[in-house]
């Protein structure tokens, strides 16, 4: 249940309790009021009693006085004395009882002198009867003064009685009004309380229904989930399993519940599983834990676990995912990586051997060449007189061959060095380089008619030394193969290819047959006889390697006697090192 809903229910019950409290308070106040009203009535009766006592005392006093006046018998003086004493007592009591009313006090104040005068008058008549006889007393009575006083007393008492009656009525009215307000309040509170209780009841019923619905939803998710969901006890047994367990492992849920779950774990994974369960016991959730579970058919599945312990329930809530395929893929990738590593190590080994080889080529192959050339020269110088023309020509040929082989060795070493040197990367002005190379070429044959068309401002990032060698080779080739033309035209420029800049060197030279384009970039591959054009056959292989080390491509177009065009891209950053793995657009013959 949501806290807000709990709060609402608690508040509802609180309110209902409050309403009941109000009703109870009302009852208490009504009892108090009833008691108050009863006391009021009793007091009114007491006042009336005292009024009657005053009146009857005065009447008793008057009766005694008259009896004595008429008869002169002292027997009548007894009621007279009793009345005289009692009237004072009654008057005191009356005045005390009516102290809370101003008007009754006024009446008391009026009554007291009247009674005093009456008592005094009567005493005088009694005294007169005693001293002057019947006739004198009769006359005094007959004067009527006593009767007038008596009438006044009666009037005041009647007034007080009426006043008391009025007060009683008035108080009852106020009490009744108050009672009616409190009664309505109590009724309202009672009603509210009932409404609230009914509302609470409805809410609780709704809540219970919602819980049932949520339970149903949870159960459906539990059943539907592709992941394996389970609840396990700290005792090492599963308590509840989603059907995915059965689908993945093949065991029935009953079989899985019957044995400790560790029984199903791969023996090699048990120690790790136990320590993970130990962590869960200590309240540490499992984020990602992998182990193998046995299937009914004896095979193993890799499961990845995520679990949360709930200590107060003594339970583990866990979900597992079958990652067997991923694991197998990872193993395959690891195997492939290992294979690749072996291959890379092999390549490194080969590369090292190649370096050693080229180093000894540089040293050891050149030494005998120097001997061949040197001693041929010795013969030509020291034994010239003993050699005829043919002999000298033979020695010259030996020397030329040695020179050619020296060049070939140097070219080969230069080619292998391209892959071995550490590449630099800095802005290189290809246009300026091309101008310099063109000037150098013109100097070698100042008599040739040649036109160089070089686009200005072509700057790239790359290794200046290698890029110079590349341009030197391409322009040198163009220079060489345009020699038979009357006027050579050699162009260096660039154009926008498909999203990349393409540079080109083209000429109007002898060109080549596109059928042999595949041989163009191979080391020692030549499309022309040695007699036609000089060269080692290594220049374009060198160019291609330089382009590849700059992550670029190179290709050629041409036709016999139609000139040739070499296009290349420079992929931006330079390749790291000559690992021996490089892009090959055109197969390179083994160097």
């Amino acid at each position: 249940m949501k806290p807000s809903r709990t709060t609402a229910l608690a508040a509802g019950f609180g309110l209902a309790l409050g309403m009941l409290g109000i009703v109870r308070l009302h009852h208490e106040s009504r009892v108090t009021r009833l008691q108050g009203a009863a006391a009021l009535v009793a007091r009114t009766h007491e006042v009336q009693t005292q009024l009657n006592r005053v009146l009857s005392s005065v009447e008793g006093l008057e009766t005694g006085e008259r009896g004595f006046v008429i008869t002169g018998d002292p027997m009548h003086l007894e009621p007279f004395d009793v009345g005289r004493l009692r009237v004072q007592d009654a008057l005191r009591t009356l005045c005390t009882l009516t102290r809370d009313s101003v008007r009754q006090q006024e009446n008391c104040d009026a009554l007291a002198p009247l009674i005093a005068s009456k008592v005094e008058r009567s005493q005088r008549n009694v005294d007169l009867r005693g001293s002057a006889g019947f006739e004198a007393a009769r006359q005094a009575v007959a004067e009527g003064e006593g009767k007038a006083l008596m009438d006044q007393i009666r009037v005041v008492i009647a007034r007080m009685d009426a006043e008391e009656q009025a007060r009683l009525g008035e108080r009852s009215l106020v009490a009744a009004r108050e009672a009616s307000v409190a009664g309505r309040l109590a009724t309202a509170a009672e009603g509210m309380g009932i409404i609230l209780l009914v509302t609470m009841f409805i809410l609780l019923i709704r809540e219970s229904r919602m819980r049932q619905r949520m339970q149903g939803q949870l159960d459906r998710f539990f059943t539907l989930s592709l992941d394996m969901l389970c609840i396990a006890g700290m005792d090492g047994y599963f308590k509840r399993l989603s059907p995915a367990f059965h689908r993945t492992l093949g065991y029935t849920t009953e079989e899985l519940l019957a044995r400790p779950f560790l029984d199903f774990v791969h023996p090699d994974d048990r120690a790790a599983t136990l320590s993970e369960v130990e962590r869960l016991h200590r309240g540490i959730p499992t984020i990602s834990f992998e182990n193998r579970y046995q299937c009914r058919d004896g095979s193993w599945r890799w499961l990845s676990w995520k679990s949360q312990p709930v200590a107060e329930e003594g339970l583990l809530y866990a979900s597992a995912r079958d990652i067997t395929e991923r694991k197998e893929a990872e193993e395959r990738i690891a195997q492939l990586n290992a294979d690749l590593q072996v291959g890379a190590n092999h390549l490194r080994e080969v590369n090292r051997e190649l370096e050693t080889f080229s180093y000894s080529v540089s040293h050891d192959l050149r030494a005998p060449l120097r001997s061949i050339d040197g001693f041929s020269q010795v013969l030509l110088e020291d034994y010239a007189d003993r050699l005829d023309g043919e002999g000298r020509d033979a020695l010259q040929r030996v020397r030329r061959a040695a020179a050619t082989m020296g060049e070939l060795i140097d070219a080969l070493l230069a080619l292998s060095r391209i892959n071995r040197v550490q590449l630099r990367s800095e802005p290189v002005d290809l246009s300026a380089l091309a101008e310099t190379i063109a000037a150098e070429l013109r100097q070698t044959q100042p008599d040739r008619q040649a036109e160089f068309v070089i686009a200005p401002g072509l700057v790239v990032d790359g290794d200046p030394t290698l890029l110079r060698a590349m341009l030197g080779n391409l322009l040198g080739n163009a220079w060489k193969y345009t020699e038979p033309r009357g006027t050579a035209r050699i162009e260096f420029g660039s154009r926008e290819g498909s999203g990349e800049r393409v540079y080109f060197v083209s000429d109007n030279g002898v060109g080549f047959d596109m059928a042999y384009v595949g041989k163009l970039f191979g080391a020692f591959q030549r499309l022309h006889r040695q007699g036609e054009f000089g060269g080692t056959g290594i220049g374009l292989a060198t160019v291609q390697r330089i382009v590849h080390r700059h992550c670029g491509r190179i290709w050629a177009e041409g036709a016999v006697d139609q000139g040739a065009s070499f296009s290349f891209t420079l992929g931006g950053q330079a390749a790291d090192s000559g690992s021996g793995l490089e892009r090959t657009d055109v197969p390179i013959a083994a160097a």
Partner: protein
Amino acid sequence: MINGTILLVEDNPDDQKLTLRALKKNNILNEVVIAEDGAQALEYLFGTGQYADRDPRQRPALVLLDLKLPKVDGLSVLAQIRADDRTRTMPVVVLTSSAEEQDLVKSYELGVNSYVRKPVDFVEFVDAARQLGVYWLILNAQPRMHGL
């Protein structure tokens, strides 16, 4: 110094002979002592081993040093020449077949005075020998520390 000794450290007999011829062609008539490997060259320079009776203070005017040598290679010989006070200022020219960048860089790091790659063409070699002789035996003033 025109009459000083030249120490040629070279294991290849053909190269020994051709070098001697190239020097002679240029009328460089200094005495040439040949060491066939690095160890022999060091014994000669420091008066040890078979040269125990030689006075090491008699320094050669020039050492022509091959790099690829039996026993002790040329770079080690160069390092030991530069490490010893007696030979520190002696002119050493590396004369080798190798055009490898690494050999060139190491030689200069160790304080070689010149690095000459032996050309295949003997005529070119004779010319190189002439230039070496002119510079190191005639023009150069001793003693000098490193550098040309």
